[in-house]
């Protein structure tokens, strides 16, 4: 992380801020904040920004907890998993809610969640936010997650691989972030079974992308963390105001991260399937955490249940909102 | 009966040049005769034996065994190799029975005939051992049993005792002589031990080197079974040593280059004095 000696002497030594994010369109605010230079402007000339893209939230959380990145955008579930273990990360703000869909392969015979019994469903990573949503969906229908055909089988797979696997008929359905779902539907490989605004918890109104920071960074560079939140708000506002310009910005950033850009229509579809907001719905997170506990992903939780009070530090968010 | 007529053999060397290993070899071995071939290392003894066995083809001349021209190896001419060449994955019994198996003989008979030969070389107790569990002398006995069980008319032995220590070698000399006296096989025996050749054979052929030719022939007219103290043997030994001296020097000179001069050579000295002794 950035060294402690730099704390307070903002104008003197340059500070490197390592920002992590996932290579998903659902991280659009981050992409815009970078591409439009909001981050650099808010952090000041003294800060050097280093962006690291991750394939999944688990890797991101590990990196954050071990200080390889300072702050960044990620889904909440891996953050909760990590927090329970290391207790050294904080949720600062939201970025968007919703933005994931359940898609079924054409010919799989899945037309509703009920049909998932005995099927194979792909998720981006074990313990990911999408998996929690899926588990909630299944639970509502009284379906079990199993390792054989008696219930629903889960498999962790990177979204790109899921696309291929669906083409080859190896996966029946998947719950994954946009624009992958739209892409699968557009390519005629599958159909959307549960749209983004019906995905639990809270009917699509759950945090899918949030801003998280390591305790160390927050302690030494509270001001910088605040700047990131401000840049995030700038970006959200920009996306609301200039949707068309946003698409090319997102595509550019994706190209930088993965070597491949994305069609504007896909990005447009993706952005229309989520709601950008800085709000954090703590109840939704609590529900999700409980699902993770039930799934056995979070160990050592006593009768009292999960205590997530130390996970939030929303004071900065409050400051930025009030300051405006 | 072996007849070798004008046999020649040239090897292609790695540098492309030809190397004449055998040139114009002519000799005959009668039925039931025990003939040894002596000569310095590399003179072509093994090549000659392989040609007779049919394991290598001569470039010129012809080889006859028991009246038929030799074209390929066959069970009428069995070779006993220097390093025994027993199959390590077979027990003593299986090794000895290997040739019988190829002949299509039934398992029971195979076993009986093999055991008989194994007992003949005093290894009855070791029939179920693997070769690596035997001493050098015992392995060589097995190789002999393996050859004898085929009941070949001709035994070809390529330095069979070279790897053994003196005492074991002495034991095996006596055994081989005994076996030969009992079975009267035709034996062509290769060695570079003069005493061994003289002790065992009816006739000794001495080869010269580069190219390999038969240089001289000695007939050993001593009583059987041979006795080490026999003065006839000592006499012939000295004569052969004398014949070989020049060849040995040739080899020595090649090895040491000009460092090794004729004047200094201790061999010609000993050979000369030896010659006087012999006369």
């Amino acid at each position: 992380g950035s060294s402690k000696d730099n704390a307070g002497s903002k104008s003197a030594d340059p500070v490197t801020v390592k920002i992590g994010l996932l290579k998903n369109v659902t991280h659009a605010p981050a992409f815009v904040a970078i591409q439009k230079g909001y981050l650099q402007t808010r952090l000041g000339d003294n800060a050097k920004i280093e962006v690291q893209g991750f394939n999944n939230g688990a890797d991101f959380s590990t990196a954050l907890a071990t200080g390889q990145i300072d702050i960044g955008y990620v889904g909440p579930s891996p953050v909760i998993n990590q927090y329970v273990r290391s207790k050294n990360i904080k949720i600062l703000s939201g970025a968007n809610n919703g933005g994931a869909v359940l898609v079924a392969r054409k010919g799989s015979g899945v037309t509703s969640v009920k049909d998932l019994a005995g099927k194979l469903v792909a998720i981006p990573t074990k313990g990911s936010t999408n998996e929690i949503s899926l588990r909630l969906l299944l639970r509502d229908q009284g379906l079990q997650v199993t390792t054989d055909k008696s219930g629903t089988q889960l498999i962790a797979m990177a979204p790109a691989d899921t696309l291929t696997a669906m083409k080859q008929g190896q996966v029946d359905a998947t719950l994954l972030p946009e624009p992958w779902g739209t892409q699968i539907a557009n390519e005629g490989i599958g159909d959307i079974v549960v749209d983004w605004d019906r995905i639990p918890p809270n009917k699509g109104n759950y945090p899918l992308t949030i801003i998280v920071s390591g305790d160390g960074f927050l302690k030494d560079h509270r001001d910088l963390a605040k700047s990131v939140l401000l840049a995030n708000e700038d970006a959200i506002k920009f996306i609301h105001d200039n949707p068309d310009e946003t698409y090319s910005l997102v595509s550019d950033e994706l190209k930088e991260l993965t070597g491949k850009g994305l069609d504007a229509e896909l990005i447009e579809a993706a952005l229309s399937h989520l709601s950008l907001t800085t709000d954090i719905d703590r109840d939704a997170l609590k529900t999700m955490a409980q699902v993770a506990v039930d799934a056995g992903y979070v160990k050592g939780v006593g009768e009292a249940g999960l205590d997530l009070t130390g996970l939030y530090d929303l004071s900065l968010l409050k400051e930025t909102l009030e300051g405006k | 009966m072996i007849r070798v007529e004008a046999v020649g053999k040239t090897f292609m060397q790695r540098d492309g040049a030809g190397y004449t290993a055998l040139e114009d070899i002519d000799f005959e071995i009668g039925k039931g005769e025990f003939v040894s071939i002596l000569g310095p290392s590399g003179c072509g003894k093994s090549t000659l034996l392989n040609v007779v066995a049919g394991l290598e083809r001569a470039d010129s001349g012809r080889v006859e065994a028991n009246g038929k021209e030799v074209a390929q190896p066959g069970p009428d001419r069995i070779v006993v190799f220097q390093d025994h060449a027993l199959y390590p994955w077979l027990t003593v019994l299986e090794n000895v029975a290997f040739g019988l198996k190829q002949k299509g003989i039934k398992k029971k008979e195979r076993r009986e005939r093999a055991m008989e030969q194994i007992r003949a070389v005093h290894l009855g107790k070791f029939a179920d051992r693997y070769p690596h569990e035997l001493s050098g002398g015992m392995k060589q006995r097995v190789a002999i049993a393996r050859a004898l069980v085929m009941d070949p008319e001709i035994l070809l032995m390529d330095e069979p005792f070279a790897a053994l220590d003196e005492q074991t070698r002495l034991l095996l000399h006596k055994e081989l002589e005994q076996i030969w006296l009992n079975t009267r096989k035709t034996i062509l025996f290769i060695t570079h031990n003069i005493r061994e050749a003289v002790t065992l054979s009816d006739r000794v052929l001495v080869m010269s080197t580069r190219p390999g030719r038969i240089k001289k022939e000695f007939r050993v007219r001593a009583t059987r079974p041979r006795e080490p103290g026999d003065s006839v043997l000592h006499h012939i030994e000295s004569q052969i040593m004398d014949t070989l001296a020049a060849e040995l020097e040739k080899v020595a000179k090649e090895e040491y280059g000009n460092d090794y001069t004729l004047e200094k050579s201790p061999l010609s000295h000993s050979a000369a004095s030896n010659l006087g002794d012999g006369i």
Partner: protein
Amino acid sequence: MTTRWRKALFLILLLVIWETAYRTMHWGWRFPSALQTMQTFYDGIANGQLLDATMGSLRRILIAFSLSCVIGMTLGVLFARSRLLDETFGFVVVALQTVPSIAWLPFAIIWFGLNDMSVIFITTIGATWTMTIASRSGIRNIPPIYLKSAQMFGTGRGFRLFYQVMVPAAIPQLITGMRMAWAFAWRALVSGELIARGIGLGQLLEEGRSLGDTSVMLCIVLVIAILGTISDHLVFKRIENRIWTQYGLNAAKT
């Protein structure tokens, strides 16, 4: 006997030191404690997950290894017997052998999908070339005197020579080659399972990582170590030693 006791003592000591270090040095989530690991191991056994994964991995490696033995030996014999083949194609096999088979995984995924087949494919690839080279050189290195004397005893130059002399003569090298091939297959399997799917140890390890659960990770590593030790040292090495001893090839070693 004393050695065994010393080993046991050493193991117990190790466990104690490990647990103490965990408690005093606050490794926290970066490395599990001995007790956590044992608990996870027990849970894994109890809920059957660990056994299932082990069985899945073993099934895959056994299929792949059998395949690669068959393919490798067939190729090896062809290369050993045909000089032309060896001289024109030989270098391709040598080159293929140096490619870590995991590099083929992306292709396997395209061809077979993210499934068992892919993992079996790369595991097979991982062992085949080594087997090919081992059996080729096994047959090549047969002392010519064995073949000569076989012909003298009347095996001919055909199939009888092959299975009565050439195969047994090449066995020591084949076994050594198999041991090597197994090591490569084992590596390919674990890395394949880490990336591709299917119930297996690699996948379980990857799950442990996704959930940040170091005790699961360590548990899997230990299972892999135990399986590896059993297969390599208690199976392959024993067979190898027995064969080499029977063939009298160990003499020089000791």
